[in-house]
């Protein structure tokens, strides 16, 4: 069952992430793909995440497919103009990539090539419209193409954004621009996320809650202080602290599993997107704890 079919079947969907490496040694990455391919519904392939130069998302999506998993092509607008983006989308289509996640992309100043020229010829809402156009057989200039794409396109949203009103307005613009599904920034407060879902449920879109495994109270504090749009509630930080250094990671995994269970049992959203960030081997463990395997 494809990712799109899984979402539309009403199954609680799980996606995880493959981070392409910097360099041509892909052994570890391929190992991660094998670790996850039979457990999750699709694997997101990040696009020079955090503006750090790595193997391109398109090539790694192909490798994901060759290794028996379904990729979600993450596309940012940071590094390519509208010609490059459309051209890569057509390339993705002929390689058999079905799902694309449209994002504006972290600024070059966040990455390891700070002197690069940021492109941003388009941004996420506009890119979604472009994908919709390509699906209808037309490029951005309105030219008829020889053969249309057939992408299932999605986008991202930050439910904990502060203030929330402009973020929600953009969320709705993305839906009108053609987004079928959303993967969210990491969420830790299920009650607050439920409120966001109250808004999201008014629209015909699927939502996968973003999860990032907490390794320690220190990491939780770091996220709160430094990462926009992430808020770890104090009670979770206390829980990690109480667990002590030895048990902190185990507790973090328990928290993730507990959240997944609640999201699924209470039908709060349509699935989860687990961003392991180097802890790919823990994803199956968490899924098992959550009763998904």
């Amino acid at each position, binding site marked *: 069952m494809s990712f799109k079919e899984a979402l539309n079947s009403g199954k609680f969907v799980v996606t995880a992430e493959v981070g392409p490496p910097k360099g041509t040694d892909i052994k570890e990455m391929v190992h991660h793909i094998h670790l996850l391919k039979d457990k999750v519904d699709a694997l997101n392939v990040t696009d020079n995440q955090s503006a750090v130069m790595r193997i391109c998302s398109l090539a790694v999506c192909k490798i994901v497919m060759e290794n028996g998993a379904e990729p979600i092509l993450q596309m940012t607008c*940071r590094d390519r103009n*509208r010609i490059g983006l459309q051209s890569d989308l057509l390339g993705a289509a002929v390689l058999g990539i079905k799902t694309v996640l449209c994002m*504006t*992309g*972290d*600024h070059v*100043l*966040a990455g390891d090539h700070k002197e690069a020229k*940021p492109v*941003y*010829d*388009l*941004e*996420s*809402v*506009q890119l979604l*419209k472009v994908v919709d156009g390509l699906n209808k057989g037309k490029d*951005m200039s309105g030219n008829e193409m020889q053969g249309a794409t057939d992408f299932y396109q999605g986008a*991202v949203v*930050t439910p904990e*954004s*502060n*203030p929330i*009103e*402009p*973020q929600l*307005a*953009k969320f*709705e*613009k993305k839906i*009108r*621009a053609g987004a079928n599904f959303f993967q969210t*920034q990491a969420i830790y407060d299920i009650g607050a996320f439920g409120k966001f879902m109250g808004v999201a449920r008014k629209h015909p879109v699927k939502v996968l809650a973003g999860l990032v495994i907490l390794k320690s109270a220190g990491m939780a504090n770091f996220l709160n202080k430094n990462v*926009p*749009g992430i808020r770890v509630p104090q009670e979770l930080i206390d829980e990690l602290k109480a667990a002590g250094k030895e048990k902190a990671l185990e507790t973090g995994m328990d928290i993730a599993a507990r959240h997944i269970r609640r999201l699924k049992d209470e039908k709060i959203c349509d699935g989860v997107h687990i961003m392991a960030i180097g802890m790919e081997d823990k994803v199956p463990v968490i899924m098992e704890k959550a009763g998904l395997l």
Partner: protein
Amino acid sequence: MIITRKKDRKILLDTVKEHKSFFLLGCSECASLCGTGGEPELKELKELLESEGKTVAGTFVAKTGCQVLGTKIELKGQKEVLDRVDAIIVMSCGAGTQSMVEVFESKAVYPSNDSMFLGNMTRLQFFDERCSLCGECILDKTGGICPVTACPKGILNGPCGGTKDGNCEISPEVKCAWVRIYERMAKLGQTEKFKETVIPPKNWSASIKPRKIVARPEAKEEKKK
């Protein structure tokens, strides 16, 4: 106005080291307000050059250095000095420098400043960039605040995920352009407009360089006559 910043003086001195005598030209408009090309700065550079054994044969503050004809006329009285010097150092913006390049075809002309941006002065010599001269103004759609300029990504349809407590991830001391736009439009009772307006991709062909405008089309006819 055009915001300029003084070039590092060591680099400037190195750039002009082959020349012995100079004429310094400032500008009474933007560069004077920026503190980069008014009387005090001309005096300062004159003294620096002289301390390096150079001659400054003349100085002048043009009224509007980017106005080619006007500046050419203003400088008529300085002709003898200008003919004599090895080089002209222009202490305004890149436009002012190139006015001199046009007027003095066979004289070396150097800039003393870097031209930074089109800016608003918020306090004396505090400058903010608010307009990118994109050639396709969208302020009517954004509550009068320009996201092309105020957002580091130039996003046209709402805040990115990098908003932290209303501020920008890239410049944490700066408020997110889209939060500002939202608040301003809310004050104007335009919340619905904020939600409904989808700004299409920009037409960057409106800013392909070099741009040229003749705002007086009849002038071409005058010339023919």
